[in-house]
């Protein structure tokens, strides 16, 4: 008896448990799927965006610009930093807000899609009606229609509605018609597309990386130990999984010396030989194994140097890259296998030389070496000549142009693009296909009563009805 009562109460609990869980979860789900919650979340997101746009964000503006702004508005800056408003996009609350929006979108989409799949889009908008006067005498066929057939006037209205793309169901003394069913579905597709886009953003945030490497003609990517990779705001070295060989870099200038164009001839080599080759220029990337190779903005002169030990057996080659806008700025490099550090700058007509190899004013490399004891020696090395340093000979072999190459990989991108395309298609349908429901019934004294329902765009519907029925609705 006791056992049976225990099992009975367990059964009762078993039946109660899901109901309780449902009672707990359902309101939360209902709340997150509600239109009110969606609107509140959008308003919060809008506020976050406004703050983000108005306050300088670290990582978006340069450190120098941020410091200048900070010194100009110290109180605002302190408050902004204390609240994490100097990095809104990377704060946990911003991501939580984004996740809540994604959840709300998913819940709304699922709820609406399930309703539509079960019953189809329900009629929306207020129901209204107008009465159409009977057609003037003589314009309609005389006599009653044959038994079982709708009246001729109704047939005319039905034909007219069909011509305008309405789906018409004819009855004995009336008809019902609807059009624009795709419109409500468009809204579902739009919200679904936004969910896919949000998922893509999450995948992208977790997997995307962008690597940068400076290369000059003759250099191969794998000569470097790796390239700098930016991932989630941190910098690290990444071992390359393919090599980039650069055979040429070209730059064209406008008359005011601003850059007209920049391009590079490259060959990408994977494990199975050369897999892609061609010209990379601004806005024209090369793609390989899910990665894309793009040319960045910076470029400049690259001095190719070789260093040979006195015994002649060991030779090293390397490049020193100089910024294009300031040839006088100093660059630092180490002569291989020695303890000598060299500070260098380009002088002479290096800019002219890059455009014309036969320029009269040949470039020179001015540099200072300091040995392990700190003793400095100054050199002025013309192109093609060599000097003796430490235990070897340093030669200024060539002057080339270096360019910044960017390798990026984003596994979330296909999802983002698919989501954006879906969302756009859905939005276009939702905004411009207006669903309409019409019922036409005959009035006892002749003429027709047209019941219509549309969520919006009543004005154009009335115009359409006027055209369809050939009757002036005004005054009826």
């Amino acid at each position, binding site marked *: 008896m006791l056992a049976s009562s225990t099992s009975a109460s367990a059964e009762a609990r078993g039946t109660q448990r899901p109901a309780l869980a449902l009672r707990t979860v359902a309101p939360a789900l209902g709340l997150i799927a509600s239109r009110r919650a969606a609107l509140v979340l959008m308003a919060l997101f809008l506020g976050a965006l406004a703050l983000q*746009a108005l306050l300088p964000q670290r990582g*978006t503006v340069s450190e120098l610009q941020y410091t200048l702004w900070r010194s100009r508005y110290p109180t605002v800056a302190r408050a902004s930093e204390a609240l994490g408003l100097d990095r809104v996009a990377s704060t946990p609350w911003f991501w939580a807000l984004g996740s809540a929006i994604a959840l709300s979108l998913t819940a709304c989409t699922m709820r609406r899609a399930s309703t539509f799949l079960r019953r189809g889009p329900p009629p929306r908008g207020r129901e209204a009606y107008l009465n159409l006067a009977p057609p003037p005498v003589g314009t309609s066929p005389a006599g009653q229609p044959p038994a079982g057939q709708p009246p001729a006037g109704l047939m005319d209205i039905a034909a007219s509605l069909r011509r305008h793309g309405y789906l018409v169901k004819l009855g004995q003394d009336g008809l019902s018609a609807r059009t624009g069913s795709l419109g409500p579905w468009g809204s579902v597709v739009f919200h679904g597309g936004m969910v896919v886009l949000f998922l893509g953003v999450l995948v992208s945030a977790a997997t995307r990386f962008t690597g940068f490497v400076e290369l000059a003609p003759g250099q191969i990517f794998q000569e470097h130990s790796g390239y700098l990779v930016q991932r989630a705001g941190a910098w690290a070295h990444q071992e390359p999984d393919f090599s980039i060989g650069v055979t040429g870099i070209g730059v064209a200038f406008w008359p005011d010396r601003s850059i007209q164009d920049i391009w590079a001839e490259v060959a990408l080599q994977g494990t199975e030989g050369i897999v892609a080759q061609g010209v990379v220029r601004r806005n024209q990337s090369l793609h390989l194994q899910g990665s894309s190779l793009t040319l*960045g*903005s910076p470029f400049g002169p690259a001095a190719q140097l070789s260093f040979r030990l006195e015994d002649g057996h060991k030779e090293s080659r390397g490049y020193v890259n100089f910024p294009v806008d300031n040839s006088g700025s100093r660059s630092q490099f180490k002569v291989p296998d020695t303890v000598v550090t060299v500070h260098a700058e380009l002088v002479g007509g290096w800019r002219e030389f890059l455009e014309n190899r036969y320029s009269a004013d040949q470039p020179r490399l001015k540099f200072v070496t300091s040995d392990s004891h700190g003793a400095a020696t100054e050199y002025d090395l013309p192109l093609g000549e060599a000097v003796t340093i430490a235990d070897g000979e340093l030669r200024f072999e060539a002057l080339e142009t270096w360019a910044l190459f960017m390798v990026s990989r984003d596994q979330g991108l296909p999802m983002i693009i698919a989501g954006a395309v879906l969302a756009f298609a859905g939005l276009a349908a939702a905004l411009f296909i207006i669903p309409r429901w019409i019922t036409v019934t005959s009035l006892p004294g002749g003429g027709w009563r047209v019941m219509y329902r549309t969520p919006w*765009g009543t004005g154009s519907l*009335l115009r359409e009805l006027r055209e369809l029925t050939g009757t002036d609705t005004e005054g009826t």
Partner: protein
Amino acid sequence: MLAAAHAAYWAALASCGSATVVFAIGTVFRKSLVMKLGGVVTAAAFVMLTVALALRWSATGHGPYLGRHEALASYSWALIGFYLLLQWRIFRARAAGLIVAPTSFFMLGVAALSPAAAQFESPAMRSTWLWVHVGMAKVAVASLLLAAGISALSLRRSLARPRRLTGPSGPGAQESGLEQVEELSVRLVSLGFLVLAVVIGAGALWANTAWGSYWSWDPIETWSLATWVLYGMALHLYHQWHVTGVRWAWLNVSVLAVAAMLLLALWVLSLSPHWIYLS
């Protein structure tokens, strides 16, 4: 050629000023003939501005999107062109000239005060996505401005003759002018909202090739997303909460005002790479 472009530009500016005066007179004295004249003067301004932009394009070798002068002049061109197209198809839209003409006059005036020297196009600018981004931005701004202008006019009318604006719901339901105007403004906002989505998407694709990142939370990028969300909220309020009639007109005007004020605040406060192209 730049001198000829400048002359045509000043002629367009003068025509816009004249159109503003003509539309104001037509509205105050309710003279449809004067309103028609306003339309003609606006069309003349459009022709002049087209000539000015075409000549400048030919002289500089790039489209009108580099620098504040070119940007504002081309936005103004899009606004006037959109208005002319609309009032050609929809008679009631003609009254929006009262908003379009002074807005264009103001934009052209600010453009006239901005440096007009031709700028060279950097390699990053040579992209199909930039064309889509810039071209669609003009359509979006023109349609949203026009929608707000139409709503403002309907507000003026409804304030002059207080009347509850609701959909027809009873016997003999009629299509009133104000309802037609409301539908027109909703359609324009919908178009602007849709096109703004294209602007943001194309801008992201271009930014990836120019700056190496699809989205970098640059203030102008963030502002465009905020504006999109703002209009999204407005459309939700219209379609889901039935904020119609006078309330819709107020909402539409307010949304544009908020977006414009935010942009103005950005102009003063923010440090955006976009200003390189718009200063």
